[in-house]
């Protein structure tokens, strides 16, 4: 068994950037592999639903180019998870097109594995029928109808598909949706390192330099994994890791800071010990991994919520502000009546969703807002209409504008104009909007069955598929 495995995580997300100098320093420390994730659910359901990526192509290309050149120079594996933000097939293809362009421009030769994470709807229905899809907490209702109306459902792969790709000879792995930690933990565990330490180091690495005390921009993080501990250090000499900053990182974006659930088990941080090696480097020991009874794969899905139009209007009149709740409910009623006049029986009130957000009151927190009475001297209203087609949404937005402009209040007699609209036209069409619709896990028979792989030999601009 090797004594130390060195792992480089250049950035929190491929496309968010890192300093070239930090990356060069990290390469001089001779990492055994480079890993980086390319997305998450964090940017929202729109990306999984629409197939778009949150980071621009040029930004992803800049990061991926440096990583690829670095990995090829050292002849070490490069593994990218959650390609193109949401990790569906369209996102993976987008990432592959960027990779091919870099290979052609830089005349690079390597074998690349593409691991698919988008799920076949028939497969999911079969597993659902077998009772092998179960909800996490909290979870929306999930059934065959939800599967049918989903734009896209992806499974979150763990370590096994990455290892299968490396075993098949891949130098570069582009994966669809993957657990961020799985990118980093698979190879060390395969080399015999302690699973508790491997999953914990992966958890810290997955956000690049986010676990330092004084992060300025997204940047590189390096880990040194040994038999009984690991150490982490950021290659930028101005960045510092402290025991507290590293311990704190397990809090970030996790509901539970001590138990982190993965496909094959749970990382247990209750007995982790954090110790300063020097003022920039921290040593961690004591982390444990508890194997799961059943192997599970988490699903993420998105469906179309409809097409949306929005309008912004603000109010400065204190008479309207002091009765804003009743003004808004009267307005909703007027809009409903006018929609009925326009559409007759062809559009029911359940066919559209009208939402009016009141900024200056509870626009930011909605039902979680404890402050019930606004003290603001002006309010901003955001009107949203969502319907089955853009045409309906847009039509209702027009109705909404006119009704809102002139809704009377008892304090004034005569025609008032109640809303200040900063934009002309006052409303804009947002197109399709999406929602997440799954928070469930699948019990597969095999960790790789949901994640088929393609293998390609890349030589500059030439790309040849290799039989598996």
């Amino acid at each position, binding site marked *: 068994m090797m004594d130390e495995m060195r792992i480089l995580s250049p950035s929190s997300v491929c496309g968010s950037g890192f300093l070239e100098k930090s990356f060069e320093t990290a390469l001089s420390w001779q990492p055994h592999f480079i890993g980086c994730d390319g997305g998450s659910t964090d940017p929202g*359901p729109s990306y999984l639903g629409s197939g778009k990526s949150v980071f621009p192509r040029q930004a992803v290309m800049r990061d991926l180019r440096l990583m690829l050149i670095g990995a090829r120079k050292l002849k070490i594996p490069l593994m990218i998870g959650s390609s193109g933000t949401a990790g569906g097939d369209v996102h993976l293809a987008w990432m592959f097109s960027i990779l091919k362009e870099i290979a052609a421009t830089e005349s690079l030769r390597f074998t690349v594995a593409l691991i698919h994470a988008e799920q076949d709807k028939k497969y999911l229905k079969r597993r659902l029928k077998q009772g092998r899809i179960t909800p996490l907490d909290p979870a929306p209702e999930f059934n065959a109808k939800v599967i049918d109306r989903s734009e896209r459902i992806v499974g979150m792969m763990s370590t096994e598909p990455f290892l299968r790709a490396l075993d098949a000879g891949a130098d570069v792995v582009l994966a669809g949706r993957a657990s961020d930690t799985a990118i980093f933990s698979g190879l060390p565990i395969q080399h015999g390192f302690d699973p508790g330490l491997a999953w914990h180091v992966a958890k810290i690495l997955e956000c690049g330099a986010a676990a330092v005390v004084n992060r300025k921009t997204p940047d590189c993080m390096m880990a040194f994994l040994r038999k009984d501990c690991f150490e982490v250090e950021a290659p930028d000499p101005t960045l510092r890791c402290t*025991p507290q900053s590293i311990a*704190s990182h397990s809090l970030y974006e996790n509901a539970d800071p*001590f138990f982190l659930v993965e496909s094959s088990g749970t990382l247990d941080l209750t007995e982790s010990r954090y110790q300063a090696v020097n003022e920039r480097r921290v040593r961690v020991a004591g982390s444990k991994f508890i194997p799961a009874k059943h192997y599970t794969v988490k699903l993420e899905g998105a469906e179309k919520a409809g097409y949306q139009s929005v309008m912004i209007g603000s109010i400065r009149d204190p008479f309207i502000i002091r009765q804003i709740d009743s003004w808004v409910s009267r307005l909703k009623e007027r809009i409903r009546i006018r929609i009925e006049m326009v559409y007759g029986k062809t559009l029911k009130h359940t066919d559209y969703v009208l939402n009016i957000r009141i900024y200056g009151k509870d626009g930011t*927190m909605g039902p979680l807002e404890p402050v019930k009475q606004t003290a603001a001297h002006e309010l901003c209203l955001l009107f949203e209409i969502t319907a089955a087609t853009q045409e309906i949404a847009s039509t209702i937005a027009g109705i909404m504008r006119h009704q809102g402009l002139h809704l009377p209040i008892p304090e004034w007699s005569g025609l008032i104009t109640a809303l200040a609209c900063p934009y002309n036209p006052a409303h804009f069409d947002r197109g399709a909007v999406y929602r*997440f619709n799954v928070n469930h896990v699948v019990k597969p028979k095999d960790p790789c069955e949901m994640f088929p792989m393609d293998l390609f030999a890349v030589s500059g601009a030439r790309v040849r598929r290799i039989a598996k």
Partner: protein
Amino acid sequence: MTKLAELARLIRSKNAGPFQLTFDIMFERPEIYDRVKKSGAVTRDIVAQSYNILPKDVLFFYCDNALAIKASIPRPFSQGDLRDSDGHGGQQYAPLMDIEIP
């Protein structure tokens, strides 16, 4: 009495996946963390009260290693759904800032 915002180095909120919100209350020095922890003023019940939800829906943790207190709650609407107002969940922590610490 001192407000929690004056004692913490950082109070933040964020999504923990699309269906949960999580709050981190982090401290610079162990003495301050201990003071707040021992005061008993930051509890599961206070968090539930601050957001008008049931205590059983709040996950609540003291993280001694990190000098932090953490709580997680279900989102009122899933991330990005029609009535959701905070896609990243980043601006939901303000009510915690005013908790009074003896």
